[in-house]
């Protein structure tokens, strides 16, 4: 058994969902996503027993492209993040009625397929294909099933598409250049190349543009808030929960090992940019009226911190970044789902039109509260483990970084609690708020359970990712 099984399963799932009826599409998609989760857990089991679950075969002779999928701890962790979130994301759609549900869920599964491919690919060409492939489903999901004015949505989504696509083109150029030098796209060979300082500089910048737009770092983030707001919540979850992590993962997997010297050269500038994103995102989030937009900016702040950890380029930074990626993936999905749960009942995303929900559904309020607390990295949640590690790594680089990055502790609490107060507390709302349904409850409980368990016992994940991070660090140093 190797990792191709996972890809095949998800692809078949997407096709099967497409050919199933609209009525059962969500269930078919759920079945396949759960199956994918099971397979990925089985793969994890094999991997931890030392079995090699990588896959490699010649795909194209000229240019020399290998269909190479490499599963190390880091990839498996990201794959598990995807396969664990996909069922939850599919399940979270159970409360919505989508037109052409079969197309919708097929796209969701297809997106999971492409993202897993991105996480696994160890051949630059294959990686690039999966990277761009993941853009297509989310484009249609946001465009067709999004909300709000159709013209504004179209504008936002097309901007997103062109923006990210344009950024990726530079990455493609960098890959082609590397191919010229190496005669192959294979990761192992590419990272072993001996590149001059100038070459590294340009390659770093080319990759940086692609990733800075995807992650996003300021000032490349302008697509984010609008798309998050306009996309259907499932699309937002896919984007914020997993797709952002593609950019961060790629920084670790491709950018840093390929151009380590350039990365060191530009380290302070980029960490500065990332941390500016932390502060800026937090401050902009303070005055957002739309709940989804607020969460989008909070996401901007959090990924800024993760990116800073990546570019700190030491053990703690990278490890903390990976932990925080996973933690943030879960918590942001939970938070967007909470926004969706409110929307289903109140038909609004404007915070000032909510309020007083806690009295009506104490259960939902408690779960939302825990997610908010996880998002502000309260110790005991998984987010704290990641955030602490990242901040510590920054402090070993430069204490000023840690202080600036640490403002997220204060500002994050500021905007999240402010939002929570106005959305959930206060006098009982006149509008009816039905209690959470079973499917909604499962999503929340699964996410919260994950965050709390690994908050206290992150050791399995740390042990899973550490060897591969060490391998990356070997190339970086």
């Amino acid at each position: 058994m190797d990792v191709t099984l996972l890809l095949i399963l998800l692809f078949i799932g997407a096709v099967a969902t497409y050919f199933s009826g609209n009525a059962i599409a969500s269930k078919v998609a759920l079945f396949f996503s759960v199956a994918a989760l099971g397979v990925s857990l089985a793969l994890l089991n094999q991997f931890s027993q030392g079995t090699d679950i990588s896959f490699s075969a010649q795909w194209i002779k000229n240019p020399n492209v290998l269909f190479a999928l490499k599963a190390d701890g880091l990839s498996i962790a990201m794959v598990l993040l995807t396969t664990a979130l996909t069922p939850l994301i599919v399940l979270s759609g159970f409360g919505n009625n989508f037109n052409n549900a079969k197309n919708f869920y097929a796209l969701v599964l297809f997106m999971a397929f492409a993202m897993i491919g991105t996480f696994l690919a160890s051949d630059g060409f294959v990686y690039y294909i999966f990277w761009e492939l993941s853009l297509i489903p989310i484009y249609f999901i946001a465009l067709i099933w999004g909300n709000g004015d159709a013209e504004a949505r179209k504008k936002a989504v097309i901007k997103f598409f062109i923006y990210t696509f344009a950024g990726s083109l530079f990455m493609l150029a960098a890959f082609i250049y590397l191919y010229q030098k190496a005669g192959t796209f294979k990761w192992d060979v590419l990272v072993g190349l001996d590149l001059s300082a100038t070459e590294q500089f340009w390659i770093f910048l080319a990759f940086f543009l692609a990733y800075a737009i995807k992650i996003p770092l300021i000032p490349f983030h302008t697509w984010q808030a609008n798309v998050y707001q306009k996309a259907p919540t499932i699309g937002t979850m896919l984007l914020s929960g997993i797709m952002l992590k593609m950019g961060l993962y790629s920084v670790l997997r491709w950018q840093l090992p390929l151009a380590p010297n350039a990365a060191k050269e530009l380290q302070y500038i980029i960490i500065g940019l990332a941390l500016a994103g932390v502060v800026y995102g937090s401050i902009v989030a303070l005055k957002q009226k739309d709940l989804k937009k607020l969460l989008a900016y909070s996401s901007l702040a959090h990924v800024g911190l993760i990116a800073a950890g990546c570019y700190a380029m030491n053990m703690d930074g990278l490890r903390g970044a990976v932990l925080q990626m996973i933690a943030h993936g879960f918590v942001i999905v939970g938070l967007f789902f909470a926004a969706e749960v409110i929307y289903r009942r109140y038909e609004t995303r404007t915070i000032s039109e909510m309020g007083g929900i806690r009295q009506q559904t104490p259960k939902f309020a408690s779960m939302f509260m825990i997610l908010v607390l996880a998002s502000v990295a309260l110790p005991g949640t998984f987010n704290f483990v990641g955030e602490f590690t990242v901040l510590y790594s920054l402090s070993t680089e430069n204490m000023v970084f840690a202080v600036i990055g640490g403002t997220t502790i204060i500002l994050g609490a500021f905007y999240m609690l402010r939002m929570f107060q106005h959305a959930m507390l206060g006098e009982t709302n006149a509008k009816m708020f039905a209690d959470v349904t079973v499917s909604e409850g499962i999503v929340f409980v699964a996410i919260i359970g994950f965050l709390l368990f690994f908050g206290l016992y992150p050791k399995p994940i740390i042990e899973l990712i550490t060897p591969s991070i060490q391998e990356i660090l070997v190339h970086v140093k």
Partner: protein
Amino acid sequence: METSLVLLLLLAPFVGFLSNVFLGKQFGRTGSGVLGTLAVVASFIATVIFFMQVNSTKEAINIHLFDWIAMGKFSIGFDILLDQLSLLWLMFVTGIGALIHLYSISYMHDDENTHKFFSYLNLFVFFMIMLVAGSNLLIMFIGWEGVGLCSYLLIGFWYKNQDYNDAAKKAFIMNRIGDLGFLIGIFIIGYLFNTLDFVALKQAILAGNGTANLALIGTAALCLFIGASGKSAQIPLYTWLPDAMAGPTPVSALIHAATMVTAGIFMITRLNFLFELAPDVKMIIAVVGVFTALVAAAIGLVQNDIKKVLAYSTVSQLGLMFLALGLGAYEVAVFHVITHAFFKACLFLGSGSVIHALHGEQDMRNMGGLRKAMPVTFITMLISTLAISGIFPFAGFWSKDEILLTAFHGNTVLWVLGSIASIMTAFYMFRLMFLTFFGEFRGTEEQKHHLHESPALITVPLIVLAVLAAIGGAINLPGNNWLNHYLAPLFKGHEAHHLDNTAYMLMGIATVGALIGIGIAYSMYISKKQVPEADDKVQGLHKVLANKFYLDEIYMAVIVKPIYALAKFSRDYIEKGLSNIVFGFGTVADGLALQGKKMQNGNIGFYLFAFVFGLCSIVYYLFFVR
């Protein structure tokens, strides 16, 4: 055996929390209260057992539960350290905690969310135990943030009132400002010593490893102190504590008087070996402490809300404790923490009893003459008031006197300021007593009709605490110094002061000062029967004090408003601007296309000319350039 007992100590309140969250409604209001109380009592019993053991063996108990976070150069275990200091703290955390739980059964009986209240209280105790018993800085930080969370939840317990929610949010965020300092301190310590474990840290410092960079150690100590000042409400982060009185009164007693706010003192005491390396920071601590004591006492002089008076009194007393810490007299600070926990908890619970009797009335101008209606409350509060004022032989006398004695030996200016603060304490506390319990009742007829002594569940904790407030000083009487000996393993040979003439003189001065304060209060509120004026009539210094030196307004104008303005500006302009830059690329491409379109003007002559020109260029290149 030890491990399971530790688990009992740690998890009993957590189990109480869980069962109250999930099953609290089924238990009923009393049931959930009893459950919560029993959970804390279980912890208390476990603590007592450990206390006896450690007291006899003199050896700390260190238990490794599991590995938590692995860092690059060190790993952080989920470890519990039960030594003299943490057990002492646990004793009064769980002990007073149990009493306050008991009290709350009656106090919160009429609330619709009683089970939630108890679950939060249990959770608080759980986190407080973590804070105290954690064997490294990060476990302590879990507890540290956790108690902040519980404080947030309990201040905003009546969440329908947005003012209360604001107070809760303010408390949480101001705490977090301190927490950032704490975290930075942790980072520096980890960076310098490659460990966060207290025992290892102490060994490293005593062995002189990693202590070369004194400036960095000083920074770490300062950052940790910022953390402490956030949690323990010192200048400039104290403004959340008076607002925190929005929570139910037992919460104020437990969290905002007896336990959580002393976490800062605990942390500094815990890391005393580190602070000893940073004398400058110690000086800062002492100065901040004494100024906090003064400022808070001054504000306390004119407050009319009974709980606000107590809140400022707490801030002021905490300031005195920090003064002691800054002077290196850690055991003195610990002593005052303990006595303060007794009498301040008693005072808060007493004020709760009064508020309960008056159906939520908190303004002292509408009280008076309650002495006859509520004798038990009156007596217990009187004892505690005498204790806090530093009247012989109550507990506060001994501890406060030791602080002042230390200050006198350390720095006379600090002593003078500390003494002034303590005279003011005597004044405003007796002002509170006189306004509340003496004279005529000034409330409505309806309230007067319902005046009653509180039930036993309320009075019993009061009596217990009052007794402790009366005799609590016995744990560290001069000459006996049990506490000093008990804590001796923690500190680097700090000699207790001998009872010499100076000491007697200072005791005399302190007592006389306290009596002067009481006398002024007596003459104003008993002899002249003054009642504080309405808020809008006060003037001059009085007005400044009544408005708390306008500190909240200043913070609002200097910090919060600019951040909001920046947020609005960013949202409305910077975001749009950045977005327009991105769209700008599109616009430029569009414009170029338009220009290019113009070139396709359909004029064949022009095309041909361009063609010929291109041809010439190619030929030129082929023949002349290459």
